[in-house]
């Protein structure tokens, strides 16, 4: 996976592990506890859906999982690395190498072509231009958008934009793909396409965490984590072919 953040071959190490995580937002005098004592473990190749009403803390949980935010208390480990002990630069490196993000708003850079957008994580990973191009094209091929490589996001449909975003998430071969309402802005056809793509990546061995409020999206996951009032309400086993952890379909 590259230097700096060595991957671990230890199969018993969970991909992410949260122990008694708390997150408090301070807004002047007001303290808002977004997460209270959340403990959670997601193993390799799991397909987890995080559900819950808005304000339940699922977005905060997602941000902590993605190393975009640090918890106020508790221990968070990603592939054995203790996130609290890392500085911004190291966290950036972990985001770059171990995590692939897919956002509801796509979050592609408007002034760059699809290819440049997909290649951007490799730029920050210090990959040389030739390899960057080859790998970005490979990722675009994965999402069947090679013919749109030179288009800017504004020239693509919502579904296509989200597929470019998926290509960007997978181009670094990350261990985890975090998808925050990936289908929230898409029509049902495009949503199905994107979801199928994400599940394909999971089938290839990547851990997939999807945050959603859509029940039918959640039911396709191997495990559903329901958030309520900043706590994990329940780990329900739903849908067909449920495997508890380290699962295969």
């Amino acid at each position, binding site marked *: 996976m590259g230097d700096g953040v060595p991957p671990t071959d230890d199969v018993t190490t969970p991909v992410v592990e949260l122990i008694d995580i708390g997150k408090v937002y301070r807004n002047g005098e007001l303290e808002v506890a977004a997460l209270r004592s959340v403990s959670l473990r997601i193993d390799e190749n799991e397909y987890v859906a995080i559900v819950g009403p808005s304000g339940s803390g699922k977005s905060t949980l997602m941000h902590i999982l993605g190393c975009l935010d640090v918890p106020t208390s508790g221990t968070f480990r990603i592939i054995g690395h203790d996130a609290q002990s890392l500085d911004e630069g190291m966290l*950036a490196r972990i985001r770059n190498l171990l995590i692939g993000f897919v956002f509801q708003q796509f979050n592609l850079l408007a002034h760059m072509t699809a290819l440049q957008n997909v290649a951007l994580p490799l730029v920050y990973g210090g990959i040389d231009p030739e390899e960057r191009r080859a790998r970005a094209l490979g990722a675009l091929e994965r999402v069947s958008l090679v013919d749109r490589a030179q288009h800017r996001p504004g020239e693509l449909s919502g579904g296509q934009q989200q597929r470019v975003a998926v290509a960007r998430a997978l181009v*670094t071969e990350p261990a985890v793909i975090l998808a925050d309402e990936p289908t929230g802005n898409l029509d049902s056809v495009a949503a199905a396409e994107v979801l199928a793509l994400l599940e394909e990546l999971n089938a290839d061995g990547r851990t997939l965490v999807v945050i959603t409020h859509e029940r039918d999206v959640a039911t396709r996951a191997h495990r559903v984590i329901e958030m309520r009032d900043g706590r994990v309400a329940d780990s329900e086993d739903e849908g067909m072919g449920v495997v508890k952890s380290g699962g295969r379909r």
Partner: protein
Amino acid sequence: MDAVRSHRLRSSLTMLGILVGITAVVLTVGIGQGSSATVRDQINELGTNLLVVSPGSSTSSAGVRGGFGTVSTLTQADAAALTSRVTAPDVAAVSPVSTTSAELVNPTTGANWTTTLTGTTPNWQTTRSRDAQQGRFITAKDERNAAPVVVLGPETVTQLFGSTDPIGNYVTYNGVKLQVVGVLQSLSSAEQAASNDLAVVPLSTYGQRLVGGTSRNSVSSIYVKATSSDTLSTAYQETNALLLNTHHITSASNADFSIATQQSILAASNTVDNTLTVMLAGIAVISLLVGGIGVMNIMLVSVSERIREIGVRKAIGAAPSVIRRQFLVEASILGLAGGLLGVVLGILGAILIPQFGSQRVILSVPASIGAIVIGVGIGVVFGVYPASRAARLAPIDALRSE
């Protein structure tokens, strides 16, 4: 780079701030150098290796001291004494000069023109390094005979004769007819009207026929030319000693004359030039500062406008240092572009300004390169704060915006 391009109007307005500052710097230096070059030329036009003896403060027999120029203490006898090979071996040529403002009339056309009437000896040509472009200069014979002849400056000719040939024609001064025998060569770089607008007559003619008066033997100044630039200082000492002696003055501090060298005149004018340059440079520095604040302002706007972009970049793995570098590069590109365009505009100004006035502008390559470096420097210095603000943004806050 993309950001600079995608916000063309904003970027160019930002650049404008730096551009104006850099242009000011380039032109300030150019005008400063142009002015000193002009002064240098003007002083060289006086003639090379030249000493100018002027009447100075005097002490009357009653012990009353007067200021400079209150009494004309220099005489033709002083000038004659300075020609001595024995007491002043390093003096090559001496020309006493008397001047007055005079209205000359062309009796044929009735054209009149007020110019500087200069009475001097044929040696004036040597001390002042001037040639006649037409006809001849005054001769020793003219001087002996107090001949009614005049040599005119080219500008004076234009004013009195227009395009007709003046040689052999006459001008009158106070009813005295003077025959034009020559026209002085025009001095190319002379902005000083005095160099090209004058009328030269023999000193004897000046004293006996034209101005006369009680002080007909006194002169306004004496030009002394040293044999070479190496002997200039010894010529200075010889002149000083000789004049003190002929004026019977024992203490040099009581001297009733003063001797100026080209260097001393140059130094005086350089002081004026430097004051001007410092003032202009101050203005340039202020405009650069304003330009820099403009860069900072725009970069801060850019940071808050692109807060989401920064968040995305951070989410996909851009370290704070990378974000900081990105904004610094953008700021320095603005600075570099402003600097380059400023130098271009400065060059344009250097070409245009001399067309509208007599001001000379000399462009300096080191100053131009320095200006570009300053432009980039301003971009970096004033980009540091916005860049580190961008770098410090928490990715989550950045993503959450909008």
